[in-house]
């Protein structure tokens, strides 16, 4: 079925670097895991949201008196029940805090919340929506960025001239000089589609506000701390008076760390009614009102020498920001940076423009701007290699990053396994021999970050923190703010803690997803937790271990030149492993020695002096074998290999799952997941018309894992799982080019586009 190979494996670990079952496995396979979707509190009401049918309109009046007459309806809220605060996740930049979740006077996309009802059943709440009368003044809408920047386009947000929301500029080297050195320059325009996060658990929240002024919120999210801080802002409360709970979260993928209508409206309703209120989005609401991957227009100009040496690149990008900023500002930055990856450019210039339109806001989604960047970059590179008659793999290799390379002014690459990735993919392609006439292989390279170092959220807390507590019986409590959303965060942290402490994974109980009891952490986004929370956990565990070892020293009478260590629950002198003591016995004694206090270690991590973007970068190269029906344009994925460098793998089982999963989402972006809009209306907001990879469409996702050591990561680990969303669309595009000679400029690639391209090619050949 699938092949998983590890190249240059290390073997010095006890727990880490093995196959570990996820610690939440029993809960999840038996139905015990309780998601926000499953929460039921005493006295709970059910909320439903009335949404704007207009892409752009002024709200003149909302009259909900008729709704209030319906038996079972408890209350209705509108923008007037809120503080009217414009919020956003870029809290340092007030201009970019532009979204009222319940707008007071204007709606900017179809599906935007306008009012919310709470009733004793979901059905009554839904019925009540029909009895809320909203008077709108419909305004002209604009839906595409290139239209929205026109002089006569309607103004979506006051003060944003030509609807330009954010701009981003990245540049290094003397770009024009570098272009002058180039012997071949190619220009292309590309268009990249949006994509729905499509978490299996739709957005859901249960908020409970009590008369003493405290709020408890169960919420399906990727960062409990962000939710706490953002909710405090919009509710005018202190963070400490809000508790966010998120033990089990049914997927995130970049879509669940901003405020959404479910959490906000349930909280506002609960504050008004002093009853718990639950709101669960329908699948349609999830499609039309929860943000999406950012659609982009890319212009790329690339200059190379005839021998394939890369000289300069320039990219101008317009992104369809939709109605609000959200995390879109970060996606705008990251797409520009990763468009340069994984190559060395003497001169590089990127200008990104995020444009407001009257469509669903766009934001971060797994890959965070990089899948779009690679769709354009990796295809154009393939075409350049063909234009110059060069081997596309060797051309990529000679221009690639290497360990120690400095991306001018941006980042220093401390670990990089891309060179071996080329070898693995080359071998794989060779092993395939001659392919049938309807099949082709495409490749694509990329890199990705291991957490962002930027702090637009303006938090005074460390980016990650952890607390390790050793109980008298040797069991260990690990408190982290890292959010488990299915990626295996809790398991990863337990493994790092167990490795550092010298105990078993089963000895560790992980506490996460509860702001009352866990330290603040920025949460699960931008591939940050393994490196950042991992470092905090390692530090906390090492601190706890040191306290134990100090005690062990004191009682052992050993010469101080001896080093002590703990492995497998055995505390011993490294030089004389037979001399030691059981971890549990030692813990009990040590606690007595501390006047009965449990052993507590603290750890934290905030990146410093690590450039502009991220503390570490993963690298990968992917090959995808594609079958094309040239008469219908239908494509099928047959096989794939990803050669991948994520530093030191923590848990191979988790890593395999992340890479296979990323492949399926990335492949969907390449050829299935299409979000067409007409006059601001999404045309396929359901799982019948929005197509995703299913088991029958999924090819083998083989992996060659190249072990490297990342000095900044815990035990040498760095990003895995998000970066692999980046290459696949481009690899599919390159497969279409490689054998069939067609250049696809727009993704997702649909059969009709393939047929048209084949037809155009035929016509061109005929001339």
């Amino acid at each position, binding site marked *: *079925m*699938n092949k998983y190979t590890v190249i240059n494996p290390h073997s010095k670990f006890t727990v880490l670097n093995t196959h570990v*079952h*996820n610690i*939440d*496995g*029993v*809960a*999840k*396979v*038996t*139905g*015990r*895991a*309780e*998601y926000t*979707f*499953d929460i039921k509190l005493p006295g709970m009401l059910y909320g439903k949201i009335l949404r704007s049918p207009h892409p752009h309109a002024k709200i003149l009046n909302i009259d909900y008196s008729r709704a209030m007459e319906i038996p079972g309806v408890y209350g209705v809220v509108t923008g007037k029940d809120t503080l009217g605060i414009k919020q956003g996740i870029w809290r340092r930049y007030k201009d970019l805090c532009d979204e009222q979740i319940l707008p007071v006077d204007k709606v900017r996309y179809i599906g935007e919340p306008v009012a919310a009802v709470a009733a004793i059943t979901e059905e009554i709440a839904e019925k009540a929506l029909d009895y809320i009368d909203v008077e709108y003044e419909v305004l002209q809408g604009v839906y595409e960025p290139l239209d929205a920047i026109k002089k006569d386009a309607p103004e979506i947000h006051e003060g944003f001239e030509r609807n330009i929301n954010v701009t981003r500029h990245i540049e290094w080297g003397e770009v024009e000089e570098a272009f002058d050195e180039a012997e071949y320059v190619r220009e292309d325009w590309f268009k990249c589609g949006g994509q729905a996060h*499509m*978490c*299996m*658990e*739709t957005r859901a929240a249960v908020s409970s506000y009590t008369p003493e002024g405290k709020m408890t919120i169960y919420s399906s999210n990727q960062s409990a701390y962000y939710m706490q801080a953002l909710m405090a802002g919009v509710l005018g409360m202190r963070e400490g008076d809000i508790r966010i709970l998120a033990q*089990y*979260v*049914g*997927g*995130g*993928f970049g879509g669940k760390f901003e405020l959404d209508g479910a959490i906000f409206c349930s909280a506002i309703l609960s504050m008004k009614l002093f009853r718990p209120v639950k709101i669960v989005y*329908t*699948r*349609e609401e999830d499609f039309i009102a929860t943000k999406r991957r950012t659609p982009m227009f890319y212009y790329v100009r690339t200059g190379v020498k005839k021998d394939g040496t890369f000289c300069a690149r320039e990219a101008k990008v317009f992104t369809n920001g939709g109605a609000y900023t959200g995390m879109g500002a970060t996606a705008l930055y990251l797409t520009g940076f990763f468009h340069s990856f994984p190559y060395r450019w003497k001169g590089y210039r990127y200008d990104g423009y995020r444009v407001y339109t009257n469509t669903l806001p766009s934001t971060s989604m797994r890959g965070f701007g990089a899948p779009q960047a690679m769709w354009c970059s990796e295809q154009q590179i393939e075409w350049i290699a063909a234009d110059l008659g060069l081997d596309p793999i060797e051309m990529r290799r000679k221009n690639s990053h290497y360990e120690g390379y400095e991306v001018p002014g941006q980042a220093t690459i401390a670990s990089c396994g891309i060179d071996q990735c080329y070898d693995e993919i080359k071998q794989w392609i060779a092993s395939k021999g001659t392919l049938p006439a309807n099949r082709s292989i495409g490749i694509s390279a990329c890199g990705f970050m291991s957490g962002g170092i930027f702090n637009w959220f303006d938090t005074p807390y460390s980016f990650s923190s952890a607390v390790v507590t050793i109980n008298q019986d040797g069991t260990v409590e690990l408190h982290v703010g890292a959010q488990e*959303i*299915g*990626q*295996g965060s809790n398991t990863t942290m337990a493994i790092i803690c167990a490795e550092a402490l010298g105990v078993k994974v089963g000895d560790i109980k992980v506490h996460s997803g509860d702001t009352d009891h866990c330290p603040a952490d920025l949460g699960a986004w931008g591939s940050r937790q393994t490196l950042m929370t991992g470092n905090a956990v390692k530090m906390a565990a090492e601190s706890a271990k040191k306290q134990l070892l100090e005690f062990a020293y004191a009682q052992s009478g050993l010469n101080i030149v001896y080093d002590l260590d703990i492995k497998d629950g055995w505390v011993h002198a490294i030089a004389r492993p037979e001399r030691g003591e059981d971890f549990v016995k030692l813990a009990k004694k040590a606690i007595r020695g501390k006047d009965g206090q449990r052993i507590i270690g603290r750890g934290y991590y905030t990146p410093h002096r690590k450039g502009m973007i991220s503390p570490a970068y993963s690298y990968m190269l992917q090959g995808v074998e594609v079958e094309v029906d040239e008469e219908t344009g239908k494509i099928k994925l047959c096989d794939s290999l990803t050669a991948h460098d994520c530093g030191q793998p923590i848990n191979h*089982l*988790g890593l*395999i*799952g992340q890479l*296979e*999963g*990323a*492949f*399926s*989402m990335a492949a969907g972006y390449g050829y299935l997941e299409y979000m067409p809009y007409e006059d601001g209306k999404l045309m396929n907001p*359901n*799982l*019948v018309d929005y197509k*995703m*990879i*299913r*088991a*029958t469409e*999924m090819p*083998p*996702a083989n992996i060659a894992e190249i072990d490297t050591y990342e000095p900044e990561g815990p035990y040498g680990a760095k990003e895995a799982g998000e970066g692999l969303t980046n290459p696949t669309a481009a690899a599919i595009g390159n497969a279409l080019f490689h054998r069939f000679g067609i250049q696809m400029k727009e993704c997702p690639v649909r059969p009709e586009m393939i047929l048209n391209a084949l037809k155009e090619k035929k016509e061109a050949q005929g001339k």
Partner: protein
Amino acid sequence: MEKRLLTLNVNGQDYELYINPKTLLVEAIRDHIGLTGTKRGCDTVSCGACTVMIDGMAVKSCSVLAMQAEGYRITTVEGLEVNGKLAPIQKAFIDNGSYQCGFCAPGMIMSAQALLNENKNPTEWEIKEGIEGNICRCTGYNSIVRAIDGAAKGKYTEAKS
């Protein structure tokens, strides 16, 4: 509309319910009986998160009226485990990392179990067809296929002593 009394047999237990006849089976199971292991992920019979077994066959419980399920044996994910011992398919899912966020897992496991009920030696393609009605956004399905394959081959069945 007249409320109706019906008896549903879920996981071997008879439950007497008094319900609006429009109640879907998934609503009866989750909201009336309180077995929340079974999930819902769409309104279009597309995602399979609500899959249960009706007389051993996989059926999407959002596509059936509770009234229609009277007289059948309904099995939900909670019904696979016996006295704290997981069924082989559940062990297989844990061993292969065949879930991530876990939200699709109960429905996926019911599809897998139903497939194994009727096909003791499924091919890889038959396994894929067997779970095609279930969307998993996290895993990319291959680890699920491996789990079902392993379970079919008896890898997770305890030897009888």
